[in-house]
């Protein structure tokens, strides 16, 4: 059960992503060559600090309203009179700072993750539900979503994750939907959304704002970050990957096309001709048999229904269970076609310190059913990373993992990846980024969805004695780098490159550097500080505090 099942709600509105962009250029990490102009907004051909050097890192929902609900029995409504949840809003936290959008690394910016995000369903001032969004990276980024635009504004991507630690306040609610959601999703919900039409023009009133539409539904017996289903692969360069499930309860195909078709700058489809969802009948020469019409004429298909469409199957259920789906245009051109054998890792972005390991869980399916007893091949692949220099993905010896793994009867496999010490191959950037491509041994990675790919940042090791007894000179280069790369912080709050400032604010800095990484107040917001350097900084701050008079007066007066 996940976001495509019922009961589910859909929502749409806007989001804000306000990343700082000075660190978008890997060479800006080099303290030796850093120039003050790198902190300025780009001007004409001069890239300076790119398009948002003073970004806060914040990511939040704006103007997001619940647009439709689908009940457990498969019926839907968009009418507020039917269900009070249709007058409610989706918001982020109202009692702590915004969640943060974070690149894994300056040389892997294509899996940006949301950290410390709180998701709330609110009715006026009442919080109906409040939950923690499990850290998740976007995937299926598609750079041709809005082909008439330029830069990142052309792109769309999806985020899928789970909501945990849910607080419910539905005792007095007469919403049928909320009762059903609570019944099945009390402890965990699935949330998925598509983002596009992001505005990166700093003179625009919508600067850093884009469009979002998504779905929330109960989550259980499923991976957290993708939905096992019927993956549809693009058959032309004009469309993008889609997913669908066969809902056996409803005897229906539920199809998600939110991130699959190109749009104009106004958000409407480039081509709103209706399409056809069909199944290839293997008993009849793979003849396409229509399941239903994809109604792109419906103006609410995206903003109200979040691109999710349900097609009752009736007597075609068995046919669809055993044959691949396709999407055809009006001239019977095949636009998307189901991939017959599919493998996908659940979590696909990891941070590792030397000596640490992570476990990747793979799920393989064919026509939505487990594909067992097959082999997955894994290999290092840094081709998606950059810009360079410095060189990425080496030394290869810093990462160890098996070259193959066998799927069990349930189509599942686990792989443990162990990190060593890369030994500072990038010089001015800590650690190294590694990519691992994977595919079924009967397939090639180049035939797979390129987003089905594992990204890992492995940090460098710091000698034990440096960690234990750091001097200012030991931490200065790290602090200088943060001061360079995050001008909003260094100019607006603390200049971390200044020993006097760091020492005077040791208490508050210890507080934020010591936070849990999933706390939105954690520093650095970029979450690119290694275990060892973090310990070194905390030890330095502790030594300052031990030397200082008790109750360092500066702390609570620096508000």
């Amino acid at each position: 059960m996940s976001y495509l099942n019922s009961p589910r709600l859909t929502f749409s509105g806007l989001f804000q992503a306000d990343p700082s962009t000075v660190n978008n250029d890997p060479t800006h990490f080099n303290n030796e060559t850093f120039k003050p102009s790198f902190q300025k907004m780009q001007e004409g051909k001069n890239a300076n600090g790119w398009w948002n050097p003073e970004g806060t890192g914040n990511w939040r929902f704006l103007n997001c309203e619940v647009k439709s609900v689908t009940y457990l029995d498969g019926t839907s409504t968009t009418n507020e009179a039917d269900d009070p949840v249709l007058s409610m809003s989706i918001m982020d936290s109202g009692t702590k700072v915004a969640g943060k959008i974070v690149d894994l690394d300056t040389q892997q910016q294509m899996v940006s993750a949301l950290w410390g995000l709180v998701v709330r369903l609110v009715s006026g001032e009442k919080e109906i539900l409040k939950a923690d969004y499990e850290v998740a990276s976007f995937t299926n980024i598609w750079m041709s979503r809005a082909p008439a635009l330029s830069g990142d504004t052309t792109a769309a991507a999806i985020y899928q994750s789970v909501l945990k630690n849910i607080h419910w306040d539905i005792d007095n609610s007469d919403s049928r939907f909320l009762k059903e959601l609570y019944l099945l999703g009390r402890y965990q919900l699935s949330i998925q959304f598509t983002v596009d039409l992001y505005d990166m023009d700093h003179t625009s009133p919508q600067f850093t704002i884009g469009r979002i539409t998504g779905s929330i539904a109960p989550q259980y017996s499923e991976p957290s970050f993708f939905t096992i289903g019927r993956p549809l692969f693009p058959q032309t360069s004009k469309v993008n990957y889609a997913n669908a499930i066969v809902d056996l309860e409803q005897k229906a195909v539920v199809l998600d096309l939110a991130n699959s078709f190109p749009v104009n700058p106004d958000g409407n489809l480039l081509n709103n001709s209706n399409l056809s969802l069909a199944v290839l009948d293997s008993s009849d020469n793979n003849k396409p048999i229509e399941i239903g019409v994809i109604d792109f004429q419906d103006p609410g298909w995206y903003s109200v229904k979040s691109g999710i469409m349900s097609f009752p199957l009736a007597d075609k259920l068995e046919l669809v269970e055993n044959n691949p789906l396709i999407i055809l245009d009006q001239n019977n051109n095949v636009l998307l076609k189901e991939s017959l054998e599919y493998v996908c890792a659940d979590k696909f972005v990891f941070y590792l310190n030397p000596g640490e390991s992570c476990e990747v869980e793979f799920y393989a399916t064919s026509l939505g059913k487990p594909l067992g007893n097959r082999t997955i091949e894994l290999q290092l692949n840094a081709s998606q990373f950059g810009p360079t220099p410095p060189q990425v993905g080496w030394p290869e010896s810093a990462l160890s993992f098996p070259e193959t793994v066998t799927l069990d009867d349930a189509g599942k496999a686990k792989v443990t990846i162990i990190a060593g010490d890369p030994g500072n191959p990038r010089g001015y950037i800590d650690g190294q980024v590694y990519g691992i491509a994977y595919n079924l041994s009967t397939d090639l990675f180049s035939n797979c969805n390129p987003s089905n790919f594992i990204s890992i940042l492995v940090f460098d090791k710091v000698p034990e004695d440096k960690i234990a007894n750091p001097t200012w000179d030991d931490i200065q280069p790290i602090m200088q780098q943060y001061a360079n790369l995050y001008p909003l912080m260094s100019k607006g709050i603390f200049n971390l490159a200044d020993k006097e400032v760091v020492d005077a604010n040791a208490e508050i800095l210890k507080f934020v550097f010591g936070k849990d990484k999933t706390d939105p107040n954690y520093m650095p917001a970029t979450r690119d500080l290694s275990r060892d350097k973090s310990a070194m900084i905390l030890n330095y701050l502790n030594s300052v505090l031990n030397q200082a008079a008790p109750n360092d007066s500066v702390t609570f007066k620096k508000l």
Partner: protein
Amino acid sequence: MIFLKQISINTIEELRTAIQTAIELEHSTIPPYLTANFTLSNTGNDAISNVISSVVGEEMLHLSIACNLLNAIGGSPILNQPEFIPKYPGPLPGGVDTGLIVPLEKFSVELVSDVFMSIEEPEKPIHINALTGAEGSMTIGQFYQKISEKLIFFEKEAEKSGQTIFTGDPDKQLIYPKFFPEKLLYPIKGLDAALNAITIIVDQGEGTGTDPFVNPDDSAVEEPAHYYRFQEIVKGKSLVRDSSGGYSYSGSPVAFDPKSVPNMKANPKMADFPVNSLAYQYSKLFNFTYTSLLNCLHLAFNGQPEKMDDAMGLMFSLRLYAGKLLATPYPNCPGYVAGPSFEFVANEEVPKEGNPFMEKAFFKANSLVTKISVSDIEKSKDFYVNLLGFTEDERYRINAGGNFGNESYVQLNLLKGGQNIVTLGLYKDISQPFAPAPQNGTVPSFIVEDIETTLKIFQKEKIKIDSQDGQIIVSNTSDQGYVDRFFFFRDPDNNSFVIRENMTYTN
């Protein structure tokens, strides 16, 4: 000096109400102090900023103490309601209507001397007595004095029947030793602790009456009370003890350099910004963050003290958004920047504004092309190209009938530094020049740097220039004292244009 309305406290419930007012009062000083302080960021005025920051930190302490006090006697602090925030400009909570009006504005020495020092001014018994009698008002010191007296009174009454007014849940007492020394912010569980807590508030704010420095028991470091600390800014020097035993403002410099202070328009309101502006976006995010801070503090003082950690984060976040506002031009108000407005943003206000995306989608113009009706394309083109310096963008040319007949079109660009700044489309849809020359209607204005030079060139080229009573260059003065100067000229078809030199401030 601030005068509060006289209040009567006859019941424990009225005492709780008075302490809630104290919480609101302590909070109400923070937005104006912070606003002034935000405008000093990165302006080289660190000495002044440190003074204001130190006062803000102590106002936060006072707010925390007052919340502990209210919790101690079984009340519940309320910080998460729109009414919690006073209107700026306006009187402070509990203040008399005729009293001091407190604004949100950029830092100035006058703001400190006229407003901040008035807020913190200690009681001067002689003339205060005269005033209180006359207006039914009291000072902040007297207000806290009254709370102290009533705490003693009600506790003594309660003791007679073996009870106490300190019935609050001890778990709601907030301490935060990371930042507030425990001798200043401690659990209030009885009368002595309560009275001492009030002494700390009054002493830090007003001093003891005999010494401008805060009693060392009531402070973490040696420092003057708020009033005298603000005076340091006005005098330009820190307050020091003289060898003679007296005091003087002769310590380290606390000088003000106004050069880089952003010209924030006073008392901004979110609603004053056009919805489709960056100032509005930042204002809303600032206010949402501020509202989140109040929500968070409300939880912290109502049984979830660990929320103070989140509150700290929100305070820093507030600074960042203030910085963004102060770097954003105030829409339609040349010369000014936006600023923080400290308004409550209810949940429902955040989403219920329609979807500006649609607005953006339908109208997000990149440039403007102005169509000009002309009777003779070639003659007009000659005028715009040779006299005004336009160049033709031939991609758009429509030469109807091969002789620029009816419905012909020529598009002209005016370039500056390689960038196109004005586009005109000459369109033949009239057979002769407008006659008489129209005196109103749409008139595009070219903004120039030196109107006299432009006029001289135009006169030399014999371009048709309008005059009114023999006067060519006329001027307008805006409500805010900005002056712009302009003259009208005509193209060969009597289409009207303006040459304008923008905005000089004469006040």
